[in-house]
């Protein structure tokens, strides 16, 4: 059998093309199907923290602990408030006693009295789970006990978690902890039981200064979404590629 170079190339090319194209490539999707294949939710929860408004009262931490049944006096919390005091010598004094649960009512940081005359700047930074788009805590779970819902919130299945603690180690933001009562990993879930009922998270409701706000990024008319999309916001540890969804206004370089 003779075969010219041209014929060989033609047939080899055609054969390769036919073998790599699956039948499904020829089905056409409707707009809804196409959207569903890419993203099937019309809700994506996000959070906005305005550090300029926070006064460090710690009522958010208190409300969170009671709302989510986190043992009140145990040194674990789903959200916490950090205090940063930058003194004139350039040193950053950082503390968060009991996660800021009882507020900050003294000028003493880690046992050291700070002279107000000596302060360059001071501010409070509330922290909580960032509900990342690429959550490292979910990747490392060996049993599928933690996962991302279609509205972007990362949840923990308490009946499935084996308490290995990998996720607690994996979270670059340190928001996960071992629940002392349920003996499983626990974390902030934006008060999933409240936001899915149209309520605000407990910390948002308890904040008298609007320093904490919740947003649905898929709703262009959401006033908080408008702030996130139009104002200059920052996220924590952007370089980790986790795509965090807690946005901060007034974030300082000393905040990590």
């Amino acid at each position, binding site marked *: 059998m003779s075969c010219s170079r041209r014929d060989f190339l033609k047939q080899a090319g055609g054969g390769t093309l036919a073998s790599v194209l699956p039948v499904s490539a020829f089905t056409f999707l409707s707009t809804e199907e196409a959207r569903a294949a890419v993203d099937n939710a019309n809700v994506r929860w996000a959070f906005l923290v305005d550090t300029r408004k926070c*006064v460090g009262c710690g009522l958010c931490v208190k*409300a969170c602990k009671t709302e989510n049944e986190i043992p009140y006096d145990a040194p674990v919390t789903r959200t916490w408030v950090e205090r940063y005091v930058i003194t004139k010598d350039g040193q950053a004094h950082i503390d968060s006693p009991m996660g800021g649960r009882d507020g900050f009512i003294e*000028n003493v940081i880690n046992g050291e009295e700070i002279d107000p005359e000596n302060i360059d700047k001071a501010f409070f930074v509330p922290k909580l789970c960032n509900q990342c788009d690429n959550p490292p805590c979910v990747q490392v779970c060996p049993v599928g006990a933690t996962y*991302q819902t*279609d509205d972007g919130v990362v*949840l923990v299945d308490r009946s499935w978690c084996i308490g290995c603690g990998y996720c607690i180690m994996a979270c670059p933001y340190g928001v996960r902890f071992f629940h002392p009562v349920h003996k499983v990993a626990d974390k902030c879930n934006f008060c*999933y*039981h409240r936001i899915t009922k149209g309520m605000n998270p407990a910390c948002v409701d308890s904040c008298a200064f609007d320093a904490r706000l919740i947003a649905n990024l898929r709703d262009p008319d959401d006033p908080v979404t408008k702030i996130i999309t139009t104002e200059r916001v920052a996220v924590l540890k952007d370089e980790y590629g986790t795509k965090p969804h807690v946005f901060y206004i007034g974030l300082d370089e000393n905040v990590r």
Partner: protein
Amino acid sequence: MKWHVLRPLWLAIGLVVVILIARQFMVPDDFGVHGDSFTYNFHRLSNVQEWKEFPVKHLGHESCAECHEEKVTMLSASPHAAIECENCHGPAVGHPDDIELLPIERSREHCLRCHQSLEYPNNARSELPNIRNSTHKRRRECVKCHVPHDPREKP
């Protein structure tokens, strides 16, 4: 055929079969990939509903207003309007059926959360009316002289 590999091989295959059969019974039916990512959406689907059903405890001032309308009206007209009732009265769930009286936070420390002067420059805390805990009416309860529902009034 006598081959020393066969016996442990059968044992291993038997173990795999037992595990696969046990798995059929032990893994819930709704466990699987629910979403577009195997990495992030591999879970038990009914757990989402379980979290949605977690009991709500802070009910908000609208709920308080159903019985305590005059207090809520007074508060919302005062400089303390932005403060939720439950910040000082505790979560309202179960009140008044199971918990007749909610515990009221009257401590000085509670007021100091916002009103202790920290003298921080360019900080929202410094813009609030504040006191120095060490010098201002030491150890007296703030509520003896200030009405929390409207701090402009005297008791």
